[in-house]
């Protein structure tokens, strides 16, 4: 069965986000001064095969920890659903 996983990777709280800072400053300059904080992270979408949801989750977790996420700086969360539902 095919699953679609969407992984959200973000910088850990307290880790400097130079991109987010630069974007926030630019927004302020553009007049969007109601924006107080910007953090830029990654959104990774995977299509994978797995017999059932538990297996799919385990695989995605493994992929996150072995490749997608740098645990020194980042943390992650993911959603999973059978492919085709969206």
């Amino acid at each position, binding site marked *: 069965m095919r699953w679609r996983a969407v992984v959200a990777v973000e910088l850990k709280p307290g880790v400097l986000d130079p*991109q987010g800072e630069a974007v926030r400053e630019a927004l302020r*300059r553009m007049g969007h001064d109601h924006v107080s904080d910007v953090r830029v992270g990654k959104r990774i979408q995977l299509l994978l095969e797995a017999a059932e949801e538990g297996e799919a989750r385990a695989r995605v977790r493994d992929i996150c920890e072995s490749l997608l996420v740098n645990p020194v700086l980042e943390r992650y969360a993911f959603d999973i659903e059978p492919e085709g539902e969206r």
Partner: protein
Amino acid sequence: MRLGVVIFPGSNCDRDALAAAEIAGYEAVPLWHGESAVEGVDAIILPGGFSYGDALRAGALAATAPVMAGVRRFAARGGAVLGICNGFQILCEAGLLPGALTRNRDLAFHCHDVALTVVTARTPWTRALAPGERLVLPVAHGEGRYVVPPEELDRLEAQDQIVFRYEDNFNGSCGAVAGVCNRAGNVVGMMPHPERRVEAVLGGEAGLGVFRSLRLAAAGVTRP
């Protein structure tokens, strides 16, 4: 002639462009990103670098800087504008040039010489060059892959808007495009760095033609 070079925070080829313009015989003046009035210049260069740290997408933040309003007006009046590397990215992000520039196909930064073919001499920045001419210039970028939808690429070709092509399409650009212009031809963007090749001691003068073109264009010279 007076050439203005825009300094954005994070521009790092601004001084190089100013120096190259002077070597090519122009008066060169800096233009500050925070000033929306762009006056007293005959042409504008948006230089290379990492404006605003290339946050989000290269050129995205600079495209919203106050000076771009002035550049837009200048371009609309037919003024000659050249975006080099980051400057090209800014012009695309600002919508002054078609398409977008994104990460190189191999995801790596590339700093080396590349061979280009000049496609059109109709722009004020290529008037001194001949279509079909081969030019070797350095590149130094990580986000230089030119992207346009296929039908748009056809249109650009039909309208003579492709300015340079890579001989070896190392970064995976659509149509091997290394430089494009707007419909009118007065706004040009290119990824390679002509300002780095204007002195023999630095490896040759292959980039001088781009700068010299401006004078020919101003004098109304067109190549046969």
